[in-house]
């Protein structure tokens, strides 16, 4: 699986891409694979304030429900409406079309301190 080099990753299996001060957040290919067939995605409304590490929603598969944590803090700008009607997209395209939320980041250093694509893949490899 391709883990984009320009993204940053967390040990909780989220990814973040940054354009200006807008971060796009999703869950990784590995995360969706672990969860299995996804049936519900719950996301916050625009305007919500998140601190790094806050639980901001959940992803529910046939088997189980998992919380998702904010990899960076800031204000929620947008939640991906595609996932309300088609949660299964998260299994198909987790790194692109099935992003979860966009955040206006308050501290860009939080992004820089996350794992690189290589480090994340090493971490996932060691975990399994």
């Amino acid at each position, binding site marked *: 699986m391709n883990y984009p080099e320009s993204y940053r990753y967390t040990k909780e299996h989220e990814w973040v891409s940054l354009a200006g001060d807008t971060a796009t957040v999703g869950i990784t290919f590995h995360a969706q694979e672990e969860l299995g067939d996804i049936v519900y995605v719950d996301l916050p409304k625009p305007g919500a304030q998140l601190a790094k590490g806050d639980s901001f929603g959940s992803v529910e598969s*046939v088997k189980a*429900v998992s919380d998702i944590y904010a990899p960076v803090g800031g204000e929620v700008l947008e939640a991906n409406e595609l996932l309300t009607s088609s949660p299964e997209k998260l299994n198909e395209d987790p790194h692109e079309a099935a992003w979860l939320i966009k955040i206006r980041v308050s501290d860009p250093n939080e992004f820089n301190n996350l794992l690189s694509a290589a480090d994340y893949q090493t971490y996932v490899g060691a975990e399994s």
Partner: protein
Amino acid sequence: MTTAPLKRTPLNEVHRAFGAKMVDFGGWDMPVQYTGLIDEHNTVRNAVGLFDVSHMGEIEIRGPEAAKLTDFVTTNAVSKLKHGQAQYSGLLYEHGGFVDDILVHKVADDSFFICVNASNQEKDFEHIVGVSGDFECEVEFASGKYAQLAIQGPKALETAQQLTETPLAGIRYYWFTDGMFAGVPARIARTGYTGEDGFEVYVAPDVAADVWKAIMEAGKPAGIKPCGLGARNTLRLESKMALYGHEIGASISPLEADLGWIVKFDKGEFIGRDALVKQKQAGLKRKLTGFEMRGRGIGRDGYEVTIGGQPAGWVTSGSPAPTLNRNIGLCYLPLERAKPGEKIEIVVRNQAVEAETVPTPFYKRPQ
């Protein structure tokens, strides 16, 4: 505290080669899914799937009083069984709660073969041995002698028939026979835990991998797929089959679990009978009930059930039902509420979500 290494079935390598996702299932390293839970579930409903259930345990009771002992430790009527017939039954404590739910197979008048849950097998064996002293028979912990493969789905018969000269169509539901299967001696039972037609085949562990491959090959035209425990769980839930530790357990009686049909009070003395008689006389306080979510959410195992905001019970199993395209579950409710059409709420992550009790089983296969 040290962690014991996970136990492996003889098919562990095969699962890994097939790309299964493995999980710790009650101390066993088992495949939870291969291609995907929903895909595997639908394959069993529409074609045929193959499961490794070798983690299940086997206990054999043999001797002149084998039938008497088996009858004494189980709730169903062993005397009604004919040679080659199997029955679903309960192993109870004196207080009427479940030690385990089991399948009793009558091999001969003096020989019974009992299939038990993986995580309960040692406890079951101790329980039976503990009372066997008064009976002239031997009780053997036989799990090491068997691997078990489940071939399940509407195309299970045509798949399995290719591997044996025994006419399988002649084996009725909940009957079994011993014969050659894929070139090895096997016990072939028309049983399962999916709600579909199918067979559970018991073979020696050292040939299990060869038998698995032969079944996969024979099932190719029918579109067979290996299936994991994830699909096994959604399949059994749609068919309202109980899972130990969820619908049943040490603090739950068969009457509460809506399994009164496996309790034969008129057969005479058996462990747990007195407690069940008392419970019946006093009246049940709670009963297992099916529900469907009406609001958005899934009622999961252990979630609280409320009625009008007041605590009423708990969810024993809950999941999206792939065949029905609804979110279903089983829960314990006060007896007076344990009937279809009741408005209830499931507390999903601190939020009460509307649900309604419904008739069960949720799914019944077309006859």
